[in-house]
């Protein structure tokens, strides 16, 4: 396991050619890159219906009938969902979990990568498994699977009452609830969506629908007293036992905390609420007028408006800066504290702050060429594809992970080389 401080941030370039892989295997699927950029891996076809994983040129030993969902965990382990003799399991660096499933999907990692969870189906019952330990109870359906940030708990929306086709009145009585580590809340709802964990993993909250037109938030199975026309995903305060959620009241959206409306403004839309890391500020994507989108921080909408989309909001680690990707007139860029980058791109990915918040970077694409941009300036070097940039702990170096002409490139440059 590597931590970021061990990563090689010395300026330079490492190249791994994948051309030879293409000769060796029938085909090479879409490559995945490790967080530290040292490894590139892909599912490869050995022929005769057999597949394996090739990681930096080395193949995992046991071939499988099927392999999918190849993902590096945040701590750099390589995971894949694999099928042998019609049974599915998780492979971690080529070693299989003991459990076997009729199907396995939705791999989830804890923030530090130490824990791995996934959703399973066995004999048409559904549950979750965490580090190869499965829920004791299976349910007839499951959705919205999640893993707590530190990785100790799993949760999902589950169906506890069987429904035959057309049983709309039974449905209205409530067949769904949330399950934490496989244990359900004491009551059911018509619908449950979008479970959120508290930062200490002790509590969960979710959107619930009580009848066709009545929505509210439930925390650990207890609903807020207030009822709404609609709600979106709740969020826990980072340190206090408080929950906020966008709620729709009398046809307009605003923000509620533990059931009390805390924002004065009313919006045409409001979603993706986020707290600053210290919990001092709350921001959300809002639409102050039809077809106009922006960010609001503490109920103050930015002056800039964007016609098409606002997404991926993120606070800097110290909470002073708020960045978001924005789309207007068919082009994307970033906006940071209501300042819009000068250059627009065909696509941008989510903003990435340096740990000290000085820099904000993003992966960008124009004319089919990919590169990274920092503080509004795009690097002149372009690639066939690249991944999100990663800052060194001091923010002075930038790790660029990219592909060009069938080779993978791990490049470290001084951040100023792009930012100036």
């Amino acid at each position, binding site marked *: 396991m590597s931590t970021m401080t061990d990563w090689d941030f010395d300026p330079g370039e490492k190249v791994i050619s994948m051309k030879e892989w293409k000769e060796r295997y*029938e*085909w090479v*699927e*879409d490559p995945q890159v490790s967080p530290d950029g040292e490894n590139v891996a892909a599912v490869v076809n050995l022929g005769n219906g057999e597949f394996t994983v090739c990681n930096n040129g080395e193949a995992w030993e046991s071939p499988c009938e*099927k392999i*999918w*969902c190849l993902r590096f965990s945040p701590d750099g382990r390589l995971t894949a969902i694999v099928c042998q003799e019609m049974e599915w399991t998780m492979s971690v660096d080529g070693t299989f979990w003991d459990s076997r499933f*009729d*199907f396995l*999907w*939705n791999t989830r990692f804890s923030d530090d990568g130490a824990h791995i969870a996934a*959703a399973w*189906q066995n004999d048409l019952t*559904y549950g979750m498994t965490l580090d190869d330990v499965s829920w004791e109870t299976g349910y007839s*359906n*499951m*959705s919205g699977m999640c893993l707590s940030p530190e990785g100790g708990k799993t949760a999902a929306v589950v*169906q506890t009452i069987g429904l035959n*086709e*057309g*049983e*709309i*009145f039974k*449905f209205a009585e409530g067949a*769904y609830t949330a399950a934490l580590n496989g244990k359900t809340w004491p009551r059911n709802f*018509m*619908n449950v*969506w979008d479970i959120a964990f508290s930062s200490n993993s002790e509590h969960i909250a979710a959107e619930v*629908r009580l*009848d*066709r*037109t009545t*929505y509210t938030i439930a925390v650990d199975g207890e609903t807020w007293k207030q009822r709404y*026309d*609609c709600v979106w995903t709740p969020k826990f305060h980072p340190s206090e036992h408080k929950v906020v959620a966008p709620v729709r009241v*009398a*046809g307009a959206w605003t923000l509620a905390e533990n059931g009390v409306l805390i924002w004065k403004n009313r919006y*045409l*839309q409001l*979603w993706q609420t986020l707290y600053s890391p210290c919990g001092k500020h709350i921001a959300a994507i809002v*639409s102050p007028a*039809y*077809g106009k*989108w922006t960010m609001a921080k503490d109920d103050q909408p930015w002056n800039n408006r964007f*016609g*098409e*989309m606002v*997404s991926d909001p993120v606070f800097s680690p110290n909470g002073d800066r708020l960045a978001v990707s924005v*789309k207007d007139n*068919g082009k994307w860029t970033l906006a940071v504290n209501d300042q819009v980058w000068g250059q627009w791109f*065909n*696509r941008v*990915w989510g903003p990435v702050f340096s740990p000290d918040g000085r820099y904000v970077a993003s992966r960008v*694409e124009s004319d089919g060429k*990919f590169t990274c941009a920092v503080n509004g300036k795009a690097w002149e070097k372009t690639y066939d*594809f690249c991944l999100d940039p990663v800052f060194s702990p001091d923010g002075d170096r930038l790790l660029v992970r990219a592909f060009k002409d069938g080779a993978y490139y791990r490049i470290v440059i001084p951040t100023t080389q792009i930012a100036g």
Partner: protein
Amino acid sequence: MGDPAVQNDAAVEAKVVDEGIDRGVEALTPERIESVINQVFEKETGARLQAYVETCVHCGLCSEACHFYLSNDKDPKFSPVGKVKQTIWEMVKRKGRVDADFIRNAVEVAHTQCNLCKRCAMYCPFGIDIAYLMLVVRRICHKLGVTPLYIQDTVNSHSVTMNQMWVKEDEWIDTLQWQEEEGRDEIPDLRIPVEKEGADIMYSVIAPEPKFQAGLIYQAAVLMNVAGMNWTMPATPGWDNSDMAMYTGDNEIMARVKRSHFETARRLRVNKIVMGECGHAFRSIYDMGNRQLGWKMPPIPVQHAIDFYDELLREGKIRIARKFEKSVTLHDPCNIVRGRGLHEKSRSVVRAMCDNFIEMHPNREHNYCCAAGGGVINCGPPYKQKRMAGNRVKAEQLAATKAEVLIAPCHNCHSGLEDIIHHYKLDMEVKFILDILYECMEKPE
């Protein structure tokens, strides 16, 4: 082939048993009806409803536009304005003081005697949009808890799974893997790239494809592979572009389902969504669902299959190896013709594939609806006879072409027209454009 053979019978007049409506109506009280109707009028419909109600001069010019009216021997109760008279006008006039029997009739009229096809809006001198008025009736009925059972079950599926057919998450992924494997028998290196972040295209379908018509996903995969597209399909909910909540007036679930679709496309960072041959899903993504959320236009561009095929053919990315031999006619789905003007593009694709193309009349934006759209077919078997009786003009229109194959580039139209063909004993086969394109295109040896 010849004239439609079946006369419509007394079944049309028979009282329909629909638990969704019957039990819903039982629970109504006059106070609740009045309060819900007035709440919708005051808080939701605003000036638009007001303007329509005040502008209509009851001239009946819209009648000749409606296939229900024409097919039911010009019975005025099936005319567009006749449907308005039986529903929204009375609600407005009586300020919401209508009884449960009134609601019972209103829900049936709005849900099963109008396809929201908007043909009548072209015939009204004031452009009054009867489809909108019928949607307001459906919205009121939704809020009253009175919705036909089958379509409500579909909306329930949307709310739980984000797809319309209760397709579970593992079933969806398994179907993609299975279709990829099937495809490899034909094209050994065929891929269905799942969850490929940064691809150019997210291909989205409606839930009947994985449920009953997985071959369409296979055909689309062949098309994408042959054309050399950089594409992907999601492994998460959000893959389904369909939307029956739009048709029951459950705007909150419509919004939720569309948000899931667009956020999935954004999560995968694609340049655009290409969607399969479906009309109502296009209306939901391109018009109603996105706008309910506050997006004037789709935040990630959406390209309908017809436009996509046309582009691939024009750019030479797909070539026709041999022409389709049977005679074909083409149905114009309301949502992508009156709703988007794709009729010349569909003709250019059909002409590229087929030598013997026969127009049905009327056509293009004047085409008759299939009578399945607008959620009508989704109200299920109780209404099938009415649906058949309500579209005799379509059967006559089809029969007159004497074509062997009917191309219907929309799922609802496809199913609805199969019913019509069967009911009226027409000798015609229904196909999607992709069925023929797949058959006729150049593929690797």
